[in-house]
């Protein structure tokens, strides 16, 4: 998505050079939010999630199922898994994330799932028939959305997570507890403050052993325990890596020696970009709207360098400062957030009550860094103006 949005932005701002979009998956770019919801619940097909692409406007070449394996910034060339290589004037790194994989002593494969790609969602959809017992490892957004979707499909669902309250590291204890209670009312079981120590079964998983000795039977284990950045291919170029790729204010990659790479931009989940107003180190943000915003910006920046974008309202190198946003639907719960709630030092209930709809405000050193709530979307949206990041 980050790559597609960058290409669209390049064309929109008049860039007339060649554009090649390289991807590791066999599919054209598609929208991931429905994977844990509609796609599973309604068994929809790829067309339901594919991004519309206007070939006549985009004029881009797609190379699919052929991931980049290495880069030489010096030669301005990338190398692909097939052995092919491509020369570039500008490179946009938008390789995103993959699911983190757990490793167990009895490391069975059959019956284990992740959710990141379209193919992952189809595999879960095919296996999670009604009455199946599902254990979900992880109580973040993907874990909770999957729990709601699979419960609605008639599976029995148990969530195992290390934290004491789901979502509390992101949205705070009170918010997380409100979400947990509604899941419990729908029949989702929580096993919190615990981890999965081992898997039970011969060839196919039949249960999990928890860290407190309890055994949960299961037909499917879904691991929703976060992700890893797809950045190995960028190694060897003295870039400041470790957690994604550090960028400057304009999303250009930074080297270890603090110089920047003029022709390498980083977009989306893998970009670790600096704050404008907050005295905290640069951060990565894994929200859907970030690759959209990054792509738009980078396409415009490159067009400006090339001279096709000369609008007075755009300043090259201006500090990139998007407003992060996320949303999540679980049963009848609809969560909406603007800003970065997890950097707050003070959380207060602004409106509503915890057993129905509500809005929390998140402040850091006195200024508002996020607003988030359940329901009340119009009011939450109106408050986004208050946020300063």
């Amino acid at each position, binding site marked *: 998505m980050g790559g597609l949005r960058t290409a669209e932005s390049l064309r929109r701002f008049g860039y007339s050079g060649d554009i090649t979009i390289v991807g590791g998956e066999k599919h054209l770019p598609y929208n991931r939010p429905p994977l844990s919801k509609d796609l599973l619940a309604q068994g929809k097909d790829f067309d339901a999630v594919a991004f519309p692409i206007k070939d006549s406007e985009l004029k881009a070449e797609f190379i699919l199922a052929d991931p980049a394996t290495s880069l030489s910034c010096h030669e301005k060339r990338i190398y692909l898994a097939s052995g092919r290589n491509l020369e570039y004037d500008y490179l946009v790194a938008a390789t995103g994330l993959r699911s983190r994989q757990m490793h167990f002593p009895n490391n069975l494969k059959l019956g284990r799932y992740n959710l990141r790609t379209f193919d992952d969602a189809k595999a879960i959809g095919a296996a999670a028939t009604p009455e199946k017992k599902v254990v979900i490892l992880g109580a973040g957004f993907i874990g909770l959305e999957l729990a709601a979707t699979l419960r609605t499909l008639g599976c029995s669902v148990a969530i195992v997570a290390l934290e004491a309250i789901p979502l509390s590291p992101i949205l705070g204890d009170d918010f997380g507890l409100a979400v947990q209670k509604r899941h419990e009312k729908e029949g989702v079981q929580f096993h919190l403050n615990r981890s999965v120590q081992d898997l039970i079964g011969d060839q196919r998983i039949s249960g999990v052993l928890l860290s407190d000795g309890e055994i949960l039977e299961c037909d499917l284990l879904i691991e929703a325990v976060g992700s890893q950045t797809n950045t190995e291919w960028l190694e060897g170029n003295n870039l400041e890596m470790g957690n994604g790729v550090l960028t400057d204010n304009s999303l250009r990659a930074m080297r270890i020696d603090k110089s920047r790479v003029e022709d390498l931009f980083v977009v989306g989940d893998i970009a670790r970009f600096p704050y404008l107003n907050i005295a905290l180190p640069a951060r990565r943000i894994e929200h859907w*709207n970030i690759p*959209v915003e990054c792509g738009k910006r980078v396409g415009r920046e490159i067009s400006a360098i090339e001279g096709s974008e000369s609008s007075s309202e755009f300043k090259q190198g201006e500090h990139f400062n998007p407003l992060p946003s996320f949303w999540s639907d679980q049963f009848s719960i609809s969560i909406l957030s603007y800003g970065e709630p997890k950097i707050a030092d003070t959380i207060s209930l602004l409106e509503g009550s915890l057993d129905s709809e509500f809005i929390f405000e998140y402040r850091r050193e006195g200024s508002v860094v996020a607003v988030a709530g359940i329901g009340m*979307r119009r009011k939450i949206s109106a408050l986004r103006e208050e946020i300063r990041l």
Partner: protein
Amino acid sequence: MIKIQVDMEKCQHYGQCVYEAPNIFQLNSEDKLEYIATADDAELNNVKEAADVCPMQAITIVQ
């Protein structure tokens, strides 16, 4: 003129479009999306932005 279509089967009323094209999209008092189905060409870029930021990709533009 441009014609705007929102697939209400897909729309989850997140309201991300409202910020990009406030003349076209609004959340009503029940937090449901309402929109104007035709607009002046001057709104085209705003509506394109709105279509891009829609998490459910429910907005299409017919020129």
